[in-house]
């Protein structure tokens, strides 16, 4: 999908809000990866991920008429996906574990197995594997900041937490990633730039 002018984007948004199915299909294609990423990073299993992703898009379809453009569309959808995933975990009694992470009782205390340096592996895969080693809330914050280029305020809005907490998650996530990645990617990190 190529870049569109603001007028085309505006028309597309109007169609989307009016319930146009073609516009909604384009919306799904544009954001399905993001929604699956959010669900998987929240620790949902594969079958659960597809269910929650479907529920997310259904909820978005119903709420699109009320979307007024206050937040970016991707931020708005992230917050729906995140909420759906948290609600799913809560309903399935797995929220206790998430709450524990939220309370930071076990965050970062688990010793993760060190990454093996496979020469043939792409750098991106190594980084992604490292992100998967993070506690899920840190990982979500890191993905939102570094992948989706969301601001601290936007991440706080999506995760419904204080901005200071977001900063803590990002700081700790980044430190942990450095700790995991530095033995593997030190040369590349120092050479980049």
């Amino acid at each position, binding site marked *: 999908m190529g870049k569109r002018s603001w007028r085309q984007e505006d028309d597309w948004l109007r169609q989307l809000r009016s319930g146009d199915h073609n516009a909604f299909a384009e919306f*799904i294609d544009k954001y399905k990866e993001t929604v699956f990423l959010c669900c998987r990073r929240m620790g949902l299993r594969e079958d659960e991920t597809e269910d929650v992703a479907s529920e997310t898009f259904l909820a978005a*379809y119903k709420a699109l008429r009320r979307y007024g453009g206050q937040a970016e569309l991707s931020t708005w959808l992230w917050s729906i996906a995140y909420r759906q995933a948290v609600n799913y975990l809560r309903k399935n009694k797995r929220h206790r574990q998430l709450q524990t992470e939220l309370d930071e009782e076990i965050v970062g205390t688990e010793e993760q197995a060190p990454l093996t340096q496979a020469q043939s592996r792409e750098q991106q895969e190594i980084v992604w594997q490292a992100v998967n080693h993070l506690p899920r809330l840190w990982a979500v914050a890191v993905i939102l900041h570094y992948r989706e280029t969301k601001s601290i305020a936007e991440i706080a809005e999506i995760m419904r937490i204080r901005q200071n907490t977001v900063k803590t998650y990002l700081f700790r996530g980044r430190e942990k990633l450095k700790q995991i990645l530095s033995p593997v990617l030190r040369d590349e990190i120092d050479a980049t730039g």
Partner: protein
Amino acid sequence: MPPDKLNEENFDHMLSQALQRHEEPVPPAFTDMMLRRVKQAEQQRILAHVVLQERLALAACIALASAIIIVAVAFPGTAIGALRGVAADLAGQGQAFVSRFGQAAEIFSGDWRFYAILASVLGFAVYSLVELFVGDRLRTA
């Protein structure tokens, strides 16, 4: 820069690049499946709306009938007086309406345009009734 310290800016840059290049796998035909679900949800919403309207209409009928029965039982004199008044009023208006028919027939009799309009209206009514009851069968035959 101390030798054991990573280049911070390069680290952030590398992290962003690597995460942005990541492609999250999505089941094939997810979009089609989602569109089917959306259409189903829309149909269910419309159906729920119709069911709600029917239930409201039924509730209104029951409430009106109950109110009439309660009024009739509680205030029989007033109810019978009101009913007689309504009946007399309707009868008066009915007579007036019938007499107006006679006047209209006298005025229009002999005017071919009146008969032409009447024939068109009756023809359209017959066509609508045929379309309503056997239109589908005629089209598919």
